[in-house]
């Protein structure tokens, strides 16, 4: 199914877009924690930068003293002092 049709179905049925479109969902709690759902694995991790692969590209979390609080099949929680979140194509 192309992206356009999925988008339409999601709109028509009022379903959550992240489920239908298979896109990541990022929840930011202040500057202290980021929660990424629907990821496709970690590409790079150190205390200043976490790169997470997703279906729409790489999500970069920048900051200081970053810590991967939990990691399971489709969820990652990153804690630390977060300064930026970037989406790379």
């Amino acid at each position: 199914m192309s992206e356009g049709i999925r988008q339409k179905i999601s709109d028509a049925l009022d379903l959550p877009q992240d489920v239908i479109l298979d896109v990541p969902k990022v929840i930011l709690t202040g500057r202290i924690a980021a929660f990424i759902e629907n990821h496709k694995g970690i590409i790079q991790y150190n205390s200043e930068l976490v790169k997470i692969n997703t279906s729409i590209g790489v999500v970069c979390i920048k900051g200081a003293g970053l810590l991967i609080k939990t990691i399971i099949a489709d969820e990652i929680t990153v804690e630390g002092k977060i300064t930026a979140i970037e989406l790379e194509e």
Partner: protein
Amino acid sequence: MLLIKLWNYLSGYVIIKIVGEYGERLLNQAAMKNLYLWDVKRVNDNELTAKINVKDFFKLARLAKKTRSRIYVLQRVGLFFTISKLKKRKAFLFGALLFVVAIYLMSSFIWNIEIKCPDDDLSTSVIEDLRKWGLREGTFKYGLDKQYYLNKLLTKYKNISWAEIEIRGSKLIVELVKKQLPPELEESTPCDIIASKDGIIEEIVNFRGEALVEPGQTVSKGDTLITGKVVLDQDQDQDQVLLVHAQGIVKARVWYQRAVKVPLVKTKMIPTGNSKKSLVLQLGKHVLNFQFGDIAYNHYDKKTLNEFSILPRLSGGIQFNIVEYAEMKPTKEFLDIEEASREAEAELLLQLKGILKEKKVTQKKMEYMLDSDQTSVIGSMIIEVIEDIGQKREIKYGEEKI
């Protein structure tokens, strides 16, 4: 989250170090295989630390080989490891157990006896007597027969009206209330004899003093029967009055009346035969009920069938009781007037038993009548007895002139 943390602590986890260039790859692989990793931290370019469940750790070790990284265990955390460590430290465990037992044992003795009583002389005397009877510092506090000591105390000390023994921790508290005895009048104190009850005088014998009433006379409570004021010489204008300690026996007819009401319709509980059992866990004085299903009975009777003692009463007293709840059905029972009257009489006799036994009864009268709404029988009993109604009352100074 707290639950997950608690579970991890209970089942045990390890803090590991992952060494290798492809640490991230190992993390991804672990996540794909549903291995739960947390608190992943970068130490330097090719070292990571993380925490992992004991079970998952072995699976992770297999994965590590594939991703060409090495895993080192830095620390073992959790109850599982704590217990296995303790198993090696038998002396420590034994010591800890000994400590608990020692604390328990030391707190099972009475180390302090306190008497709560404003009267110091009485307190010292009571404490000495308790020591003599075997209740002293160092007595084992469980199974102490408080009633035995109370009875002994109350029989020995007539001036104690109420006493209680309470054990609070390792302290024994004896609470005493002194009796306020009516002041016993000495032979030399002038007094009157007054009536303690209403009645008709039957017989009067005065040993000392002057009788003011005679047989057949009706007196009411508080009237002076024998006076301690004896007039010596009546001829003179100024009466010479001598105050004496009046003494004598004044017997009078006195009435006691009691009434009871016996309803004609009575509700009685009759067992229906249905019953349910339930388990009760008793820890010392605390009772825990384990109910299997609700007791849907409106009326029931509780009965303890079996008691299983797990720990004897001396060491905490843990026991299981099996309790049976028997269903009861309220049924109405109708009495006729004659039966109700008989019941009323029995009840009245029971109430007046003390008086009937002690005193000389001259007359007994019973009356029955129906209640105004005809639902119950009212029985009343009047008994006439002859008893001494004399009571001494001191003549106060200043009163004598009147």
